[in-house]
């Protein structure tokens, strides 16, 4: 998701200047915008621009230990990106991952949020916190902990893990999906739940007057009204899926099935440790554009549906 605003703004910035009106608050606006502008450019626009620039360079040298010169290489790095089969395999892998994991995770998040919002459930504060706690566990720690639980000989659930090879090539992707789901269900639940809290109670009263029960209210009132929140979490999840790094990186050390190019971001990481910064930058730009296209397409498609 790194380059999209830039490209978006560059392309939308074309229309000729018109309707210029001098504002009396110009200075105030500048003062308020400046802190954001500085941070945005320092930590976002400039790094993104630098990555794009880096991706257009290539290395030249003479001799076996000649000093490298970085020269403009046009799209030569991109040629390598598009002919790199492991990278595209890994993109396919995370898409498969996302197609299963995102609906499961958001489905659970929605169910938990609706349960928390239901007047029938006791101890809401406790459950709200309990569901959210995994998100407070750093991703790496969560992956290490689950790796231990999956471990064939050391797991506290040895009876299961001795017979089911969670870390094998067939299952490890879903073992990772389980970790990601465990971490992020609570987070997504909270977003959906806060959106549920924002629904005016009059609507529920009206629904009840019409004779709707709790299930009916949930299905016909609550879910349609929190749809924007669900869409938002879906976009976040798509982005998160394509950028999967920490969990597979940790699993790599104890699973034979996780390779150095298991996910797109792992490929980028391994490429930058060659170190081949230009190729890594090109991978990153392609991944960012792909992520942008995917999230944008998803938004467009769902918005069109909503407008019908």
């Amino acid at each position, binding site marked *: 998701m790194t380059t999209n605003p830039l490209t978006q703004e560059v392309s939308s910035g074309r229309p000729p200047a018109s309707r210029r009106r001098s504002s009396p608050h110009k200075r105030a606006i500048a003062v308020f915008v400046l802190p954001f502008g500085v941070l945005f450019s320092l930590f976002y*626009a400039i790094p993104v621009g630098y990555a794009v620039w880096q991706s257009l360079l290539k290395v030249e040298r003479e001799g076996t230990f000649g000093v490298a010169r970085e020269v403009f290489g046009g799209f030569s790095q991109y040629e390598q990106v598009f002919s790199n089969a492991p990278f595209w395999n890994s993109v396919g892998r995370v898409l498969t991952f996302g197609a299963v994991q995102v609906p499961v995770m958001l489905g659970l998040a929605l169910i938990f949020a609706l349960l928390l919002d239901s007047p029938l459930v006791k101890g809401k504060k406790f459950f709200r916190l309990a569901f959210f706690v995994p998100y407070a566990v750093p991703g790496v720690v969560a992956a290490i902990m689950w790796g231990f639980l999956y471990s064939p000989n050391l797991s506290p659930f040895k009876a299961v893990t001795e017979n089911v090879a969670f870390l094998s090539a067939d299952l490890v992707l879903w073992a990772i999906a389980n970790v990601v789901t465990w971490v992020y269900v609570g987070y997504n639940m909270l977003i959906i739940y806060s959106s549920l809290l924002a629904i005016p109670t009059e609507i529920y009263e009206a629904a009840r007057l019409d004779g709707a029960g709790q299930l009916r209210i949930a299905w016909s009132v609550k879910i349609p009204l929190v749809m924007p929140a669900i869409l938002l979490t879906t976009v976040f999840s798509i982005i998160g899926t394509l950028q999967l790094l920490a969990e597979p990186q940790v699993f790599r050390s104890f699973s034979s099935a996780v390779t150095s190019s298991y996910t797109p971001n792992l490929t980028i990481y391994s490429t930058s440790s060659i170190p081949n910064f230009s190729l890594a930058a090109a991978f990153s730009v392609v991944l960012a554009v792909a992520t942008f296209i995917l999230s944008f397409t998803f938004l467009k498609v769902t918005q069109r549906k909503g407008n019908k």
Partner: protein
Amino acid sequence: MKTKNRAISVALLTVIALAGCSSTEPTSTDASGPANPATSKECQPATGNVELTFTTWVPGMDTVVALWNEQNPDIQVTVQTGPNGNGGTYQNFFNQLKAGNAPDLGQIEYDALPNFRVQDGLVNLGVCADVLAAQDEFVGWTWNQVSFGEEGNVYGIPQDAGPMAMFYRKDLFEQNNIPVPTTWAEYQDAAVKIKELGGYITNFSQSDINQFAGFVWQAGGSWFQNDGTSWSVGLTSPESIKVADYWQGLIDDGLVSANPPWTDEWNNAYNTGSDWTWISAVWGANSISAGAPATAGNWAVAPMPQWNAGDNAAGNWGGSSTAVFKGTENVYEAAKFALWLNTSDEALTALNKAANLYPATVAGANLPALKEGVEFYGGQAIYDVFAQASTQVNPDFTWGPTMTQVYADASDGFKAAVSGGGTLADALTATQDSTITTLKSQAIPVKE
């Protein structure tokens, strides 16, 4: 108006960003400057006090450096610790070099030195007369690793060596009347007997390729050759394939376990007596005693099994150097410290006590600390075995300039092989190809 301003700011930022990058261009060529002409001007003592930073992952290094700091108030060294090299520290070094804020000194294993040299990250310590004069203090092959066999060039001070031998469960071999193998053929026979008893002779290291490289090293192979004008890649050399086929045989017959190395599962396999031997480097003594404490006193060390009975070849696994990074302003002091750290009796003794490092110096083999029996190994003077192995290491093994990539790709293939997808030889063939591609993408001349 809003959009126009945004467009302007974006355009401006892009210009700044591009200007920012292009302005770094001249500095990178500057740094390349005179690579070889060794003027001693570059190795002059500084006036006044000097502060150096040293990044390492060797446990206990801070206590060793504290000895130096006490004796050298004018050259104070600060130790920074990180994960082991391929575990993240090399990546940090590369990033720091690119950003221009690398530490003065860094721990670099021999296999990674070519990688740092090709990225122009290292000071050639050949500019310091003291360093050149120290050559004879080091075991020949370790000096070869840091000088790349080139007269007058030194890219790091050798610190330790990793001559390999066989750690084995003396008690189990004796109880079951299995002779301790001296050849690889006997090793396989023993593996079959151990399998019948429900154990494994060893664990095949699927993701730490260095062990396998050590086997190839012993067999007389070399993964890279540099003839001065181009590299040749020898991952599929006959020696390399011979070793791969041997281990593939053990894997196919289920004679070895395949726990990923350096994990709790792996420690557990040794601690519970399921795995019986480990062919490893001298520093491995520490790994076993730390990872398998329940087996204290039951281990012993013997020379590596040989390909032909009566041969005397040893492999090497690991060993590292203290290198000085480009960008330091104090080459003289950094070299002085690195020499003390890796040649003085007190530092070498302290490093051995703290991390079982085996000195790369000739005299180091005679340190009193390396003559003592080790309790964990039933009182055996295990370093004697390694001292002998150290003299049997082939001096001509050469590492390539993209070892991180070689390890990552070989490990991907080896992992597949232990899970039944392809063979070790397939993995080496694939890595041979990807290595050539990577060298080309770095514009490093390579023979195909």
